[in-house]
């Protein structure tokens, strides 16, 4: 079976700076794949290139056997891909409910949207309690939940999460990772970018280790967790 997402030798530039120096990886249906690596390794750049916010100079992004390298970001969403961006990027001036509804922007069927809304509220009861609150007044953890709930509203087959643990207390981090696991068990494929390598590897099936724009290592998450060089560099043991 062809992989759900295939990234083929992409190079991405910020002006003259080469941020990704030929990255290739794949994500299979049903998997949780983690991209780990230090700050500035290019993890977020990869996600932005996959969802179309950035365009690669060379290389291809293939999703569901379709070449989406040149597809604009707003169309990629309609193909069943959702992106929970780094720093949440919720619409802080709008209410929680408006934020969630914007996640279903491309969907037409009102009943199905209502069902998705119920699903999101079940997953994140806190969002229902605060649905009329202005999103900018939520706590960090709640904002992360909102960003995830908003992404789920597009009913994605594939969800990309960028640093969901950023700035959260250890307890909340565990809660968020449990939810990622549940979302995955529901049939959604997950591509997870994390600096918290230990947590990411603990729920991932496979992982890629990034170093300054190239993939340094890849493999089974369990194997990587036991790899001496990974342990030393990313698991602070």
């Amino acid at each position: 079976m062809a992989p759900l997402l295939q990234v083929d030798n992409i190079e991405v530039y910020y002006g003259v700076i080469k941020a990704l120096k030929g990255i290739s990886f794949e994500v299979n249906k049903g998997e949780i794949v983690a991209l780990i690596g230090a700050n500035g390794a290019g993890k977020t750049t990869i996600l932005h290139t996959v969802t179309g916010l950035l365009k690669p100079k060379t290389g291809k992004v293939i999703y569901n056997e379709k070449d989406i390298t040149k597809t604009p970001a707003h169309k990629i969403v309609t193909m069943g891909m959702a992106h929970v961006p780094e720093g949440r990027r919720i619409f802080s001036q709008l209410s929680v409910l408006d934020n969630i509804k914007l996640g279903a922007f491309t969907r037409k069927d009102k009943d199905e949207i209502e069902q998705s809304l119920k699903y999101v509220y079940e997953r994140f009861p806190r969002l229902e309690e605060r649905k009329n609150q202005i999103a900018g007044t939520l706590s960090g953890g709640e904002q992360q939940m909102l960003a995830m709930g908003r992404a789920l509203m597009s009913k994605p087959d594939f969800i990309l999460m960028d640093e969901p643990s950023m700035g959260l207390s250890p307890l909340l981090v565990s809660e968020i990772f449990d939810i990622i696991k549940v979302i995955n068990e529901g049939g959604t494929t997950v591509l997870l970018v994390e600096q918290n390598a230990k947590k990411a590897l603990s729920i991932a099936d496979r992982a890629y280790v990034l170093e300054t724009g190239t993939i340094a290592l890849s493999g089974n998450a369990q194997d990587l967790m036991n790899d001496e060089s990974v342990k030393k560099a990313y698991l602070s043991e």
Partner: protein
Amino acid sequence: MEFLSAIIAGISLGSIYALIALGYTMVYGIAKMLNFAHGDVIMVGAFMMFIALTKMGLHPILCIIFGTVICTILGVVIEKLAYKPLRKATSLAVLITAIGVSYFLQNSAQLIFGAGSKTFTSLFGSGNISLFDGQIIISHNTIVTICVSVIIMIGLTLFINKTKTGRAMLAVSEDKGAAQLMGINVNKTISITFAIGSALAAIAGALLCSSYPILSPTTGAMPGIKAFTAAVLGGIGSIPGAMIGGILLGVIENISKVYISTQLSDAIVFGILIIILLVKPTGILGKKMNEKV
């Protein structure tokens, strides 16, 4: 009673400023640019209505629709040709382009319609209503201006807050990238914003020239700059801010005219702009700018 008359006339003038300021503030909110050609769209709209009325002999309502449609298209075309290629350029380049578009519109109008001024016939009749035994006289223009502005402002507020497109506009104005991730077409949203802003400018043109019936290629320049001042006063980027700022500015201008000096009224209006920029650059309802890291 003189004071009350001055206030009513000020509210009428201010609602015109508010309609224009809405275009400034919406475009600023979404495209993060100051469209200094916005004032000249008013002039184009007024000329179109003038031609429709005098040369084509259309009914006033049809004249307004004709001018509004032309301006809506014009706004979208300006955005596509002049501003869209500069989406990633520095804001200074966009600003200079906007000034260029403004000159282009003024000079094209001069070429087509001549530099001389024309007398615009009110589209709303010339009658008056007198209250309190003739102590207050309100023209039909004033009443229509205030009513039309209020209806448009309520309609626009409902549109922004209740429709999907409106909420998409708010989302784009806050975070273009995140909006795209929701499946919102940012370019389309910007086009819609320019279309709405330009349509409001055309209506403002009809109201303005019906009350102040001199039409020339530079007719839009002064109200455009004053509406910009109103948008800054209310807080640029804020829709209710533009409404409040516009009406406030109209009232201040008119009261200055009545009680201080006609010649000084413009100086007072622009003095307000300077004071706001010095004291509270975010305006009355403006939000604090969060610098993104």
